[in-house]
């Protein structure tokens, strides 16, 4: 404790210390603006957000689990499972003669319901059977992975209706000279007139949902209880919070967000893939930690997690444009991750006294 007190910086330095992630993002942006040709363009930023959606959504899912002092290793493969389930369902509905709109809607809704299941099982194991979150969700990682592979063992899910592609790769907002802004569909213009595609649908959907979950965490009783459980489990129980039920809900919510990420993936790539989210799992944990959450629980916000995710997404895209193999990304993310925790140690939010 004494050590911490010594490191309590005051004023400006402390403020910078607390906001180092934001500062780091700016430095990254400036660096790549100079070093990567064509980095500063609408297109590149769309790519950053496009690639970032999985990390943002899984990061938000992870954040809820981490705030309660847990962890969810299964989100990546639950996302993969969701891509396969939704693709299969949509194809199956289409085959029964349903219209593309209806089959996509039904397929997605059904997937979202199924997607609650892994979270429910995780939550039950963790709360009722006292299985450590790491183990319970790792088991679920294995089970989701296995089930995914089984589902596509016979036949990959292909031939989704064209509409899926239109939604997944379409834009929410277009702009063209003369017509102005238009939503959802590409404006009908003469061939020579340039249409600027501004906001990809997938990104918009993801951010609407992230905003909803940020609201839940910040403004609702549910969010408050989530922090309380992570901060002091005993106190939470004694103040009448139904711990088991809350933990189950948190893991269901994480699973739900992972499923959303999977559904968006299906719309975008028009297929299902078992390991669609595998590489995003660790990125998402990194995003949460870079965003200032603590693995001991009780700390962290959605927007800072997004900030953490952006740092990774910008890094990945920037390096790619520079033609540097993404090997370096792993090294840099590793270093940032450790820096994040060390900075957190050196610039504590409050100082504690004996």
């Amino acid at each position, binding site marked *: 404790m004494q050590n911490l007190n010594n490191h309590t910086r005051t004023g400006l330095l402390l403020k910078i210390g607390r906001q180092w992630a934001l500062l780091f993002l700016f430095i990254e942006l400036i660096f790549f603006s100079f070093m990567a040709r064509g980095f500063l363009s609408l297109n590149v930023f769309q790519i950053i957000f496009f690639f970032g959606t999985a990390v943002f959504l899984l990061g938000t899912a992870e954040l809820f689990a981490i705030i309660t002092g847990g*962890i969810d*290793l299964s989100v990546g493969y639950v996302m993969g499972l969701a891509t396969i389930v939704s693709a299969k369902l949509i194809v199956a509905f289409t085959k029964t003669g349903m219209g593309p709109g209806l089959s996509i809607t039904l397929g997605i809704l059904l997937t979202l319901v199924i997607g609650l299941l892994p979270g429910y099982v995780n939550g039950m*194991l963790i709360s009722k*059977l*006292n*299985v*450590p979150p*790491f*183990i*319970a969700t*790792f*088991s*679920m*990682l*294995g*089970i989701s*992975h*296995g*089930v995914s*592979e*089984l589902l596509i*063992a016979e036949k990959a899910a292909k031939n989704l209706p064209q509409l899926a592609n239109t939604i997944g790769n379409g834009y929410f907002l277009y702009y063209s000279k003369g017509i102005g802004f238009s939503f959802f569909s590409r404006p009908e213009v003469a061939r020579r007139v340039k249409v600027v595609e501004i906001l990809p649908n997938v990104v918009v959907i993801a951010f609407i949902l992230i905003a909803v979950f940020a609201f839940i965490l910040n403004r609702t009783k549910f969010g408050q209880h989530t922090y309380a459980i992570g901060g002091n489990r005993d106190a939470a129980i004694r103040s009448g919070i139904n711990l088991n039920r809350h933990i189950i809900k948190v893991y269901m919510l994480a699973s739900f967000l992972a499923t959303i990420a999977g559904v968006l993936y299906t719309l975008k790539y028009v297929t299902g893939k078992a*390991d669609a989210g*595998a*590489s995003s799992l*660790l990125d998402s*944990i*990194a995003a949460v*930690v870079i965003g200032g959450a*603590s*693995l*001991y629980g009780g700390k962290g916000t959605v927007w800072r997690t997004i900030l953490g995710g952006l740092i990774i997404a910008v890094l990945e895209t920037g390096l790619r444009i520079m033609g540097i*193999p993404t*090997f*370096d*990304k*792993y*090294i*840099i*993310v*590793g*270093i940032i*991750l*450790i820096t994040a*925790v*060390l900075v957190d*140690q050196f610039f504590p939010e409050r100082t504690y006294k004996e």
Partner: protein
Amino acid sequence: MNSSLALSIERSKTLRVVAKNWAFFFLLFFLILFSITGRGFLSVMNFQNIVHLSVIAILMASAETFVIITSGIDLSIGFVMGLSSVTAGKIIQILYNSGNHSAGFSIFIGISIALVLSLIPGIISGIMIAKYKVPPFIATLGMWGITNGIALKISNGFPVAELPDSLTKIGNGYTLYYKPGGGFSFFGLPEGVGNEHIRDYIRLIPNSFLFLAIVLFILYFLLKKTKFGQHTYAIGGNEDAAIRSGINVKKHLIIIYTLSSFIAGIAGIFNIFQTGIGNFTPFGAMYELFAVAAVVIGGASLMGGKGGILASVVGVLLIAVLENGLLISGVEPFYRFIAVGLLLILAIVIDELFPDLF
């Protein structure tokens, strides 16, 4: 938990013994089951195959055992192994192909440097965890990224090939050959016997077994018989008590993570001997997570304070036999993931039902 159930179970001593060693009994059960259902399962060759394929997993689990007993976790071991393998590969490749050095010398220098290098990630994680209170999960996750990136950079994303043949000759060779009625021979066929006669000989002990046995014995000894091992358990059981009884917990933790990293480095060396090439660890291999799974199935707790090398080996073998048996019995291999998941949950539930009373 249902304590009355737990109590009534406690009364039955036999049941307790079975429950405490459930992983071992499961292993026996599956061995018998697959011997009946899977053609070709029950053979010396197949068992050698199972162990040969599990060598890496066993080393990984042993590394993780030390860390988990202190209530930590090391997520970096999978990529430290890859780093060690490609580093050794690259150095051997350069030395050997320069034409100035013999295969033996190149291999010796290559593995020595790789082993020394593999200490570094552990030292760094250990210092961060012990001195700067970085949670083990994060420190080793950071090291996970860094070692992965460096291994990929060294290998440029391709396996390091064009290495001397002697690597696989040693790695896949046998310590003991036996000719029925004709006696034993060590490390190769008897002199003057050509390879065409190899079918007359039964190959008994693969070299990898011998080396694995040596490494495991040392680790077992270290954990169970020495002060170091005792302190490892004490730190996991009650870190505060360990500090107050004068154990230098910080130094101990740094050594633990360094040891874990070093064992992963050894695994990388086994890897290069077995495959003859320097392999970086593929992204989705999840060696570290399967190692944690095996250790927990073997009866350790992520809360620390318990676990053992032999128990972890049983955990690895249980997973390996299950995979191998399912494969031979013609079951879809994807069930493997599901099976590991279910085994893990079972391990924890049994642990909850039968609290340690010894």
